[in-house]
């Protein structure tokens, strides 16, 4: 069991942040919205609270921008948007990911499926 959890943690590391970037590529989203979206993906399921430190880092490295906005229902919402450098990082990941995935598929034998 520990090894299974370890595997998904390892796979998530290095890819989850680009899923976050892609999530706010075309529209601004607030934290809880992003977290809920991940909650629907079983393969990516992490503890929801761990998404916030990730958002914080992506903002600190300048890939995400954030803006506070009043909410009609609850506390103010922090909306995240992709910056220019975040956009180029996402594009870079996309091309890297395709060739990476193809290599792994070929070596592991998952390409034909």
């Amino acid at each position: 069991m520990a090894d299974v959890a370890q595997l998904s943690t390892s796979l998530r590391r290095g890819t989850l942040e680009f899923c976050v970037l892609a999530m706010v590529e075309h529209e601004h989203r607030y934290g809880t919205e992003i977290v809920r979206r991940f909650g629907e993906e079983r393969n990516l399921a992490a503890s929801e609270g761990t998404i916030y430190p990730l958002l914080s880092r992506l903002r600190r490295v300048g890939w995400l921008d954030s803006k506070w906005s009043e909410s009609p229902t609850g506390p103010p919402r922090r909306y995240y948007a992709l910056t220019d450098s975040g956009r180029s990082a996402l594009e870079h990941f996309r091309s890297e990911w395709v060739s990476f995935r193809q290599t792994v598929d070929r070596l592991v034998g998952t390409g034909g499926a």
Partner: protein
Amino acid sequence: MSSNKTEDAVAEYLHELELRLTGLPVLQRRELLAEISAHISNERVERGVTSESDLLDLLERLGSPEVVAAAAYEEAGMGEPVLAYAGTAPAAARSLPAVLPPPDSPPPAYAGEFPPFAGHRPYSAPPVAGPPFAPPPPVRKQEDNTGLRVVIGVAIVTVVVVLLGCLAGGFLMVQSAGSDAPAATTVDRVEPAPPFPENPLVAPVPTVE
């Protein structure tokens, strides 16, 4: 009552989290606590979470304070916090450094004991790290001892030689001065002063003369 209980659960969760974030820069800590707090409020309002059990589900989806704090430290590039940890993995990680010094004598014993506690990978390292540390100390001790002995021996010999030289010179001076002039009395008072305290060490010299 139930609303009080749910408030207590939220407050307790946030407090537990805050306790574990003390190693973070203050702004990152405040930011994360504000986001988590806002998340809980959002979920309660927008998903109609009212009962205590629903709220506990909500907190469980967030992850335990330990898990969230660990992610915060990792994303901050700060590694594992040294303090305020109840998590099993960090605790094990911390016990390793504490165990390192003793491995001097029984590294195999530790190698045997650790794996049963948890994963093999984290624990395979310390036994490897142990032996390299173990051999040096004895060697260093021996080197230090012999080095010290040599240094002390040389120091004693040089001190004795110097004292012998001083005493011999002093006595020659006294003798020559005594035969010369009446002023010798003043010289006597000044010159013998240094030899006197060291006399016990150089007892043989006077007998030789």
